């Protein structure tokens, strides 16, 4: 091998070695020593708390790169917009935000920062955090965020009033979520079937959002029921029952099966009422 070739190869290797040295060497001594996220449901905002330890004797400016902090319903990761520094407040609106457009100033010792989290679907999300100083990777860590499932239930109840020649059944219902994650856009269908003929006499549908450990009423207007069944013994009352939209008028020999079914992803729940109930004289 010629001497000049050897020199060229040595030079190239040297540049490479210097490049590696520059990239990995002599960076600040900053480590991620802890990461923790409190429980967060689907489409709720959460926080990943990160403790960064600056082992140097001087403050250092670093950048954080966070992956998988926000993931949309198509599974695509979006960047988080703000960091929260030294946040002692429980209320997210009182937090002191710091732009990701600027480096974080780490004092010697432990420094706490948080990043916003948000997910549109339940599941497990590895949130990857990189600590970078002047394009050098100082440390990297991953925290597995678990987004729990909602657990939906339905409950129906009714009250009766006899008015003139009619029995009026006011039906109320709730969509209940006993799980830890929110359920959004829960498709809920009401069907009313004439028990005698098996004929479908009424349908309607609507979507609801219900947060974790909460319930939402199925009715839309305060003080007005979800549905009304009027059983007429003589002349119909002629009432419109506005603003209630789900209204069925039947005659004395009619009995209706009221079914409400809610569907959220692979969860399907139902509740039923028979109006008038069996055993109630017609």
């Amino acid at each position, binding site marked *: 091998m010629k001497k000049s070739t050897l020199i060229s190869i040595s030079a190239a290797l*040297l540049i490479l070695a210097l490049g590696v040295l520059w990239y990995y060497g002599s960076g600040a001594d900053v480590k991620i020593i802890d990461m923790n996220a409190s429980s967060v449901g689907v489409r709720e905002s959460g926080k990943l708390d990160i403790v960064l330890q600056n082992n140097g004797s001087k403050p250092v400016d670093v950048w954080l790169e966070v992956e998988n902090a926000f993931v949309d319903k198509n599974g695509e990761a979006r960047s988080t917009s703000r960091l929260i520094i030294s946040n002692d407040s429980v209320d997210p609106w009182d937090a002191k935000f710091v732009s990701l*457009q600027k480096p974080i100033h780490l004092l010697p010792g432990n420094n706490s920062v948080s990043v916003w989290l948000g997910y549109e679907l339940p599941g497990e999300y590895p949130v990857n955090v990189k600590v970078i100083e002047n394009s050098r990777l100082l440390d990297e860590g991953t925290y597995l965020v678990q987004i729990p499932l909602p657990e939906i239930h339905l409950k129906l109840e009714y009250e009766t009033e006899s008015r003139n020649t009619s029995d009026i059944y006011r039906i109320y219902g709730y969509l209940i979520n006993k799980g830890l994650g929110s359920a959004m856009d829960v498709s809920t269908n009401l069907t009313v079937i004439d028990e005698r003929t098996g004929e479908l006499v009424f349908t309607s549908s609507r979507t609801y959002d219900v947060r974790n450990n*909460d319930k939402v009423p199925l009715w839309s207007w*305060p003080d007005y029921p979800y549905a009304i069944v009027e059983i007429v013994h003589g002349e119909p009352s002629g009432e419109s029952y506005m603003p209630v939209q789900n209204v069925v008028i039947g005659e004395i020999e009619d009995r209706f099966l009221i079914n409400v079914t809610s569907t959220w992803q692979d969860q399907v729940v139902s509740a039923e009422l028979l109006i008038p109930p069996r055993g109630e004289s017609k």
Partner: protein
Amino acid sequence: MRMTKLHELFSCRHAKLLILLLLLSGICAGCLGQDPLEARVKKLTHSLGDKDQNVSYASVYALVDIGEPAVDSLIKALKNDSPQVRSLAARALGEIGDQKAVGFLIEVLDDPSPEVRMNAAFSLGSLGAAEAVEPLIELLKDENEGVVLSAVSSLGELRDPRAVEPICEVLNDNNYDARWKIASALRGIGDPRAIDTLLGLLGDKELGPSVASMLGNFESEQVFGKVIKLLDSRDPTTRANAVAVFEYLQDPAAVPYLVEMLDDRAPEVRKEAAFALGFFKEPGEVAQSEQPLIKALEDSEPEVKEAAARSLGRIKSKESIPYLEELLQDNNQNLQTAAIEALGRIGDPEVVDALTPLLENKKWKVRTEVVDALVEIGGPEAVNSLISLLGDENYRVRQGAAEGLGKLGDQRAVEPLLKALETERERNVRAVEVRALGELGGSEAVEGLRRINKDMEEYWNVRTAAENILEKIEGVEEANVSSTS
């Protein structure tokens, strides 16, 4: 360890070449290691010219977030070829608030693009740049209305009296927003030279009421005499708004004039005078206004009667009670609710008997008004009425009754509230009932709150309200135990 390697390298035969290579590496490293913040500022400043508005606006926000380190780059961008870049840079500089930008922003006040002039003017106001007053006054002659209004707003923020007359001169615009901005700027400057111009706007049907409140910010002696003259104006709008100025000035000397205006020929003036008198509550003032206001309850216009009724409530006129009780039967709902509100404010327990029949009124608005009045009055009779309203057919009435029972603090309400919670379906009413139980306290209430707190089929906000109250009660109990031990 790294030092050893370097030493070995220097000891080889091709030391010169190696030194050169080292220098080269250093330069490369220097280039690669450019301050990332600087690189980001450069990129974002370039993005100000992006055709996609989402990108260009997001770049402004990002540069504002960066703040001071972005200022030099933005100042440079004021000379960019693209008007969009210049305009957004001008705006960002104002948002960042670095005084270094002031001189450069003044320079671009004659930029050919109106957007740049507008944003530069706006930013100079945000920066509080006193040296920009003269250039901004000059900008009032600009051919573009947006630029002129931006200059007006900024001059208003700078509060320099030199701007008053030039701003008054541009007040010939028919546009409401423009007139409002000009009037606000004059109010902001607060110089007495603006008073005449503002008084001239009291005849403006749209702007007059706002201008009346603006004039209330001046010293009474600067305005009072001039407003009195306007009470003789032929224009009823001017007279009504002049009366409103007295309400804001709160000068006791205005009371006789306001009483006199109760006999004005225009109903809107009488209404404004009746309304304004309710804000003069000192005994000497009430002595002058009480009887004229009672007389105004017989006015031919329901709006005047309504204003008089509300004012009699504000001044707590006991003499007006029989007249107000008469109005409880009026067919006009506004008048009826004004009388109920007034009786509540006066707070005489003897009026409860007159109010109670109205709890049967078909209109929920009337019933909620009675609830509010009963809460103001208080007493055992009011509590009984409120308890009966926990079963009202309207959720607003039930909510008001529960809230009132909590405020009145009568333990008799605990059991009815717990019973109401057995059947109440509305989320917000339940939450208010729970909070009322918390205010009333006692072992029975606490027991009920514990049940609600444990019920996983309860509304989240109701359960949380119960939880918070229990935490508070238990905290107090713990504190009491530790203090006694």
